[in-house]
């Protein structure tokens, strides 16, 4: 069965929507940095971050989204863009069975941070409104509610390469006939705790946030999912060995018509494994994280969207997307026209 990407949606520090994302990629200019500051022991801890701009928000109006933290609002906006109004209406009318697969690494950190702070202060008065939104699958639940969909909905916790796990599961559901189409979504939000946590890995790493969604279906479209091999686990090998093994499995060679979208973030240490595996690549190449920051679960989803758009606009005939996760797997996919 052939499966196609027929919709994409994105919320990034570049702005709300895929066009804003593509504009930043075309310009090669990183969006403006801001910082998260907090007092600590009489000092101010300041952490540079790339945040989604407040202006231009496209989050659909929906009652359950009123009390949610940004992770759910970003995800809903990306999903609405990926589906478009007509398909949204068909799903809401029960004419399309659409599954939701949500991949994330960090999750609902803002409310978790606030809630645990309240628990530390006095658990007897900790807010019952915050707690449900701290659960990993709260954002994906809101998406199914937004769509009025009772179809399967799974949340996967993964490392930065996990979006491919979501795509693999979507292909499985579609092939089995469980759904007519499937959304694969990733969304992350940042707070001081997570932004500082990322900098423990590399002080140069810039935490980012946002959401990305793709819609997969068996209908014919301009972007075909060609290969999605099993991820290479890190349980029995190094990241470098796994990245090299992934390149072998993908069986691709650089040419002018093929784009490599990799997961390099600009950190010599963190990028070494992937750079070593792909150092002989002769074709076109782009590294979205170097402009958009480290969005954890979202970043790989944005790679897929950038690759998909390159094929859709016939800039290239084929695109390879690879991600070298931090502590679970190396994974990748090939898209074609």
């Amino acid at each position, binding site marked *: 069965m052939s499966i196609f990407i027929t919709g994409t949606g994105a919320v990034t520090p570049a702005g709300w929507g895929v066009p804003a994302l593509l504009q930043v990629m075309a310009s090669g200019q990183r969006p403006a940095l801001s910082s998260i500051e907090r007092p600590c022991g009489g000092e101010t801890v300041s952490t540079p971050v790339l945040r989604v701009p407040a202006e231009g928000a496209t989050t659909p109006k929906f009652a359950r989204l009123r009390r949610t933290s940004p992770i759910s609002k970003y995800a809903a906006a990306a999903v609405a863009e990926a589906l478009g109004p007509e398909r949204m209406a068909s799903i809401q009318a029960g004419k399309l069975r659409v599954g939701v697969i949500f991949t994330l690494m960090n999750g609902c950190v803002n409310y978790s941070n606030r809630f645990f702070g309240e628990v530390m202060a006095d658990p*007897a008065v900790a807010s*019952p409104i915050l*707690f*449900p939104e701290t659960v990993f*699958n709260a954002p994906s639940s809101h998406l199914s509610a937004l769509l*009025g969909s009772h179809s399967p909905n799974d*949340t996967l916790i993964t*490392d930065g390469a996990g979006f491919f796990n979501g795509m693999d599961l979507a292909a499985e559901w579609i092939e089995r006939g469980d759904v007519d189409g499937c959304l694969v979504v990733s969304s992350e939000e940042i707070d001081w705790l997570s932004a500082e946590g990322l900098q423990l890995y590399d002080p140069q790493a810039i935490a980012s946030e946002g959401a990305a969604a793709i819609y997969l279906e068996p209908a014919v479209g301009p972007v075909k999912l060609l290969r999605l091999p099993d991820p290479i686990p890190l*349980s029995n090998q190094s990241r470098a060995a796994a990245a090299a093994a992934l390149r072998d499995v993908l069986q691709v060679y650089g040419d002018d018509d093929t784009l490599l979208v990799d997961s390099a973030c600009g950190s010599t240490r963190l990028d070494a494994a992937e750079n070593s595996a792909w150092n002989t690549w002769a074709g076109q190449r782009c590294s979205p994280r170097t402009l958009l920051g480290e969005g954890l679960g979202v970043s790989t989803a944005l790679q897929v969207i950038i690759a998909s758009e390159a094929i859709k606009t016939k800039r290239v005939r084929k695109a390879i997307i690879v991600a070298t*996760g931090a502590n679970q797997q190396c994974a990748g996919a090939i898209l074609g026209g």
Partner: protein
Amino acid sequence: MAYFSDSPSPSQFHRVVVTGVGVVSPMGMDFEENAAGFREGQSAFSPITLFDVSRQRVGTAGQVDLPPILSKTASRMDRGTHMALMAAREALASAGLSGGAMPVIIGTSAAAMPIGEDYYKHALSTRADRHLQLRRVETYQAQRQMTDLCRVLDVHGPMRIISNACASGANAIGHAFHLIRSGRAERVLAGGYDALCQLVFAGFDSLQALSPSGIPRPFDAARDGLALGEGAGFVLLESATAAQARGAVVRAEVLGYGAATDIHHLTQPNPEGDAALCTMSAACEMAGLAPGQIDYINSHGTGTPLNDIAEGRAIQRWAGNDVGKIHVSSTKSAIGHLLGGAGAVESVISLIALEKQFLPASLHVREADPVCTFDLVRAPREAHIERVLTNSFGFGGANATLIFSKEGAR
């Protein structure tokens, strides 16, 4: 797993069998201890010693008396992963395996939250050691913990970590079932786990979802909430062909799985149990069974007023005229709600019922709720059991149903 556009889609279904089972729960540290405890109708709640509950309304839970971690590799494992390791190791050993290449699918909800709590507390201090904070951030991540677990078990393959709240463990086993049934995998290690932690305990307390007495009474007319617990359950699923080829002992068969999403409310089920009805019906249809052929239901049965009425209504609607013949209990009454581990541990309890031929009980019931037009099992009793169904429902509306049987009892 994997997808290639030029490969044919799976078109043939394979029989799926259980060849390995492992469990850690407040009732016991392995399959046999759990079987003995449920057979005797024991209740396993105790005062919480893992964190400060002096300012909570409730101070008890189903807490596991966990032995110390001895191996160096496992020393950075969080409490939940430690329990998962023990259960997964038992499942592999009972299947006659010592590792191997296979997919691993795991459900969890809180994951390594206690380490996250520790990271948060240290981050508030200017004296926090950077190296130790990095270790906390790294080992807080569920995928890091599960990668370490696979390394210790010498099991290597694609890994999925499902976090669908309280249905996670059942979903994990359901995913594994589908992979084997469709021929995408020969065998899969699957299960779920969660450990008690302060954030989640305080969260349920803030929702006033915990029984003030600390003793849950699922399906009691005056039930007043759940009790939390912790633990892990794992199964080794294989295609019948693969199991036969290596001479493995078949413990049970997986006949059906259903999953659906309840969009009524983030934390409350549809009062008529629509999604539960959907998953029970779908699992039965896949199994080729009528409700009257199910000998026992291990219910989700949390003991909260809203859950039990919704599940009870779903069972009534699903069973129709056969409802009076259906034996139902909630084993959360004995060990508490294990959240992401619940669906997997309750699957193992269902396998215990099948293997040991008894019905585990819903304990502490004083007067059954009127919704119990089914046979609510209030004390353990021997029974002839061929097929069991287990329900798991979670926050966010994740609903899942699994059906197990004795081999060949379709």
